[in-house]
């Protein structure tokens, strides 16, 4: 890696070495520089997607005069608020190409970044509750297999083997018939993904500028040539937007609308308990999904709140729905308590697929519309936006996700195709 500065190499050995001298030798994970007047590329948004874009601009395209501009603290948006599930169990080949590419990058990301992102490939099972849902499950599994990603159609017994505490009795509102299993799927430590990319990007010389809000765009001759920020003007050869949850607002500053509505998505965790659930489980019937974090907390999520909102807070009706759904799935979790509850603001797009591509303003590129699923696509999203910003052209994987699809009507609507919302 062409690091512009000497960074600590993380390893068990360095940890022991530093342990013996009071950890006094650890360097900053990333610097906090003041912005320069101009960069080759500026990325708005210091979440996973933005930081990954900066990293891949440097790594894949040799561009190191790059800044990431973050209005708060890096990883503080949806990267730090999501439930960190990573999977590629999609129906359409376009989606599989994107998400499976991302999953593959995740598989080696810890080593690549020299940062333990704790990607735990413990598998995801989507549980079906009737013959009709099993038929849909088969439709999805077959599609995934044809599209060359791993998938199995699980029987009821296989589901229960993975999650023995599931409600398997006759008195279950949603009986278990079987499900879709993706064994390579899993969870990762969300903060670590942001921090790992930040540290690696910083190692290439990328400037990560926190507490710096973008207030407008510099548009000259119809082309975007930089941004106005709370820390002054920054000029840029290319500007990328990676501001999940606020994409519509940022696009508005550049003078265009996006097919995005913002909604809150809440999540909850329990107090930690010893291991009792080894996979990620999603019920089609309840819409609730959950897993147990390495710390022992049960992490629970469900559908979005039904009211367009930029407020990062949840509401009791949806909480009650998600949690009653969880207790339907795992009646014994009724002995646990809700420790924390929070919400992120997600970009909701009509077809629930991301928008990656040039914006209506030349020089300005989009990475948005991830809905509830942006975390799993961070490595791929970063590669694709970096490709766009460096070359001005689509990567083959990002082409179908161009904004233009809303004009042609050629949407990539997973729910429409598979009957299951993603």
């Amino acid at each position, binding site marked *: 890696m062409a690091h512009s500065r000497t960074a600590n190499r993380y390893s068990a050995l360095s940890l022991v070495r530093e342990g013996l001298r009071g950890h006094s030798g*650890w360097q900053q994970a990333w610097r906090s520089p003041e912005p320069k007047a101009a960069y080759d590329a500026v990325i708005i948004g210091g979440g996973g997607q933005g930081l990954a874009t900066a990293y891949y601009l440097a790594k894949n395209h040799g561009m190191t005069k790059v800044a990431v501009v973050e209005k708060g*603290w890096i990883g503080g948006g949806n990267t730090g608020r999501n439930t960190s599930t990573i999977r590629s169990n999609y129906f359409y080949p376009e989606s599989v190409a994107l998400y499976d590419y991302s999953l593959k990058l995740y598989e080696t990301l810890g080593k690549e970044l020299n940062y333990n992102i704790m990607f735990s490939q413990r598998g995801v099972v989507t549980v079906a509750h*009737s013959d009709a849902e099993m038929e849909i499950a088969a439709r999805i599994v077959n599609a995934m297999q044809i599209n060359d990603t791993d998938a199995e159609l699980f029987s009821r017994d296989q589901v229960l083997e993975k999650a023995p505490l599931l409600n398997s009795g006759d008195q279950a509102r949603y009986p278990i018939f079987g499900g879709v299993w993706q064994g390579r799927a899993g969870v990762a430590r969300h903060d670590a993904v942001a921090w790992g990319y930040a540290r690696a990007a910083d190692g290439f010389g990328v400037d990560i500028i926190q507490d710096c809000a973008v207030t407008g765009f510099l548009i000259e001759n119809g082309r975007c040539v930089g941004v106005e920020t709370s820390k002054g003007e920054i000029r840029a050869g290319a500007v990328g937007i990676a501001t999940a949850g606020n994409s519509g607002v940022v696009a508005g500053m550049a003078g265009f609308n996006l097919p995005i509505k913002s909604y809150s998505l809440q999540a909850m965790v329990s107090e930690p308990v010893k291991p009792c659930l080894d996979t990620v489980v999603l019920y089609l019937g309840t819409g609730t999904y959950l897993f*147990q974090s390495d710390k022992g907390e049960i992490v629970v999520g469900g559908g979005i709140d039904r009211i367009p909102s930029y407020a990062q807070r949840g509401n009791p009706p949806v909480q*009650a729905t998600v949690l009653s759904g969880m207790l339907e799935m795992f009646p014994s979790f009724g*002995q*646990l308590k809700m420790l924390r*509850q929070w919400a992120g603001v997600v970009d909701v797009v009509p077809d629930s697929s991301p928008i990656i591509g040039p914006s209506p303003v030349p020089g300005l590129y989009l990475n948005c519309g991830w809905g509830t699923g942006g975390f799993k696509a961070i490595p791929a999203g970063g590669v694709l936006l970096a490709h766009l910003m460096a070359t001005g052209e689509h990567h083959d994987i990002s082409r179908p996700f161009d904004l233009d699809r809303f004009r042609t009507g050629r949407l990539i609507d997973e729910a429409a195709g598979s009957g299951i919302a993603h």
Partner: protein
Amino acid sequence: MTSHRIGSLAAETLHFTFDGTRYHGRPGDTIASALLANGVRVVGRSFKYHRPRGIMGYGVEEPNALVDVTLNGITTPNLRATTEALVDGMIVRSVNASPTAADDRKGFLDRFAQFLPAGFYYKTFIWPDWHRFEPSIRAMAGLGRLDPRNQPPAQNPQIAAHCDVLVIGGGPAGLHAAQQAMGEGKSVMLVDDQPVIGGSLLSRSAEIDGKPGLEWAATVSADLQANGHRVLTDTTAYGIYDHNLVALWQRRAGQSDAQWRVRAKEIVLAAGAIERPLIFPDNDRPGVMLADAALSYLARHKVLVGRRIVLATNNDRAYPVADALRRAGAAVTIADLRPQASDGALASAKIEAVHGPKGVEAVTISGQRIAADSLLMAGGLTPSVHLYCQAGGKLTYDETIAAFVPRDDLPGIRVVGAAAGQYALTEILSLGGEPHPYAIAPAWPQRDAKGRQWVDFQNDVTVKDIALAERENFRSVEHLKRYTTLGMATDQGKTSNMNGLATMAALTGQTIPQTGTTTYRPPFVPVPFGVVAGRRRGEFFNPVRRLVLEREHRDAGAVFREYGGWLRPAWFGGANAAANIRREAIAARTTVGILDGSPLGKIEVIGADAGALVDYNSYNTLSNLKPSRIRYGFMLTESGVIYDDGVTSKISDEHYVVSCSSGHVAGVVARLEEWRQDRFDPARVFVHNSTPQWATLTASGPNSKALVAALGLGVDLDDAALPHMAFADGQFQAAPARVSRVSFTGDRSYEIAVPSAKAASLLAAMQEAGKPLDAVLMGSEALLLLRAEKGYVIAGKDTDGTTMPQDLGIIGPMQKRQNEYVGRRSLLTDNAQRPDRSHFVGLTVEGDTTLPVGAHGVETLNSKRRSIGFVTSSYDSPTLNRPIALGLIERGMERKGEVIDLVHLGQTFRARIAEPCAFDPEGARLNA
């Protein structure tokens, strides 16, 4: 023994065990007070280093004393010993320790603490793979142990309450506010998380209105209740949500816990304050406790936490605590961290070491070793501003009390008492006079702090960890929190957040306000999932709609399934599904089947503009129907996708009945209603959902006409008078009965709709009339099969969210209709005109293998497989004696006759693309 109960032990009537040892306690005890009364010092182990830990607090702030409790054979994990009432027979176990908290096998981990700093796991376990390490790390993590048998029933009620003033906190400030509100004639609700009203008055003596504090509190509480106001004890306000909705968790003796959802015109937050620990080396030893907690154990449980006590303080509130402890018989040394100290106290005291790994034995203060069995900390108060901040309130740092306090009142929310930084009763009760002295001198950790000093006790975050975070640039408070896990334990940082912020401020040279505060998120304390979820479980979670004939169907041996949100007979005759479905289907082709079709939507569109509205909502024109005639058609979304299909009956120019599939009734009503109000004159057309009013029984098959004729409905059944796709009105037992000739089986069919109250009689009459005609009851599965033989589509099963009418070959309206309808423009997009769209087709297998539903057609190009569509319905047809299937296949309509490969879970099949209709394509049987 160090901590002990004062006075007689006669009241110790409750038995319990802790880590296998038997102890006694008394009514009114918490687990913590009982453990202290028995002199138990080590009650648990810390999360990371497995350090021995004792009880530190009195209430919700407790970081250490978490226990698993078994009662009547059922275990509940992670209960906070300080807030859990002692119950006779409890088996209490420490968490995160094995075999006992006192002798934990993993205690050795503390010796490796220097190699396990904050965030160490981000720096290691990268090679060879995280997955190798994860199982053992997971096994180490977690606190208590889940009991799979503990499955609490869904009995937690959720109770709505509305009032003028909701007072949160039953201490002096809250009681005072409640008293005032009552005086102003407002309706009041007062809640407190303790079993007894009184707040600080429960442990600190005071005189109010000439009465002892507790007596005053009891009087106010009694007054409130006598005047019809609600007073809830054991009730925690855990969250403020939008528009000032307050969520309460009520623990009810002998009943399930309840959630209250309270809407008050005004919320008074009187939640008090929590004492802060002091930061010094080894401040986590068992026997190191908050001074206020020690006072509460003494005042409320007659438990003296030690005999030789050192009380470290940086403020004046500790002095009355010392007095009380001394009166109870303890020797107390006050170590005042401030330069000026009162008589007898050590001034400028510096706590340098705490000795005794499993319980305080001595304390080194400013170089002097003092024997002691307890060390109390009085680090000043942190106002409980959680709910205020949840509601969006902003804090301001008050130097004089070294604490964050609410900056402004919020609309509808007022903060009073200690929660607002008012610590003196005089101030709280607006009595005038001198406030009690507080005189805090902050004692924050300094940059050069030595030794291991705990900030977050449960998560093992020390000052050094914060220093490491600072060194590595995790300086933003949120980064600090996430990197070190400070404040993320089950006590949610109630004792650690302020000290953590102050430490970071000291390290970065910023002020505390510059360093900022973290976000306060609900819940204030961990709340049982069941309380948040409520009773909406089991049958109340997405309840199904019930047929008026459900009892009759049960009696007739129906096997039920859920279809479109209704509980319907899938088939009759018991467990052998395949045989029964086959039997019913054959009967419906050869004799007559009787089906309960009541869930099918019956939506009346009435008014002068009724025709215009149904036309606009439909792909096919409907208004040009003749009265008493029926037409089949589609409803599209604005994206041009098929939303639903169904038949519409025209009664008159002002009256239509739109039928739709059972799962789409609410959706179709909503669409019609939306366009009615948004596009039409809402005084000229109305939409009534009449689905529940009518029961519909269908007779289908060659004998159906004879069956209906035998009912004597007064309808001319002659095919000329009542052809296919027409209806006629008759009567059944003096009630209206509409007979419609529509068919979803392809055979002659009659749908008879009667008011639901007549359904049972009609069914009985049909069965009676059907006997000589070999009629059978038929469930939904046979119907699904029969319609598949005919190639009739089921929207949502044989179509997906992309299917447009042209994909079914229905292009007439798109080409011919001149007026607007929903979805019209979307049928003209590039995507809609694409040549490679998927079409609805039949699939004929060679041989007798039934195609699996969900199998995909595949095409291989350059050795890469590609899906060209999938099977949507598939059956072994009893009528044709061969398998039949339907599917959506790319360019299917142009490729009829072509044989394609299909794959399912690695198996390959071959099938020929065919017309969807496999049986009676001429439709002769409709009139047979």
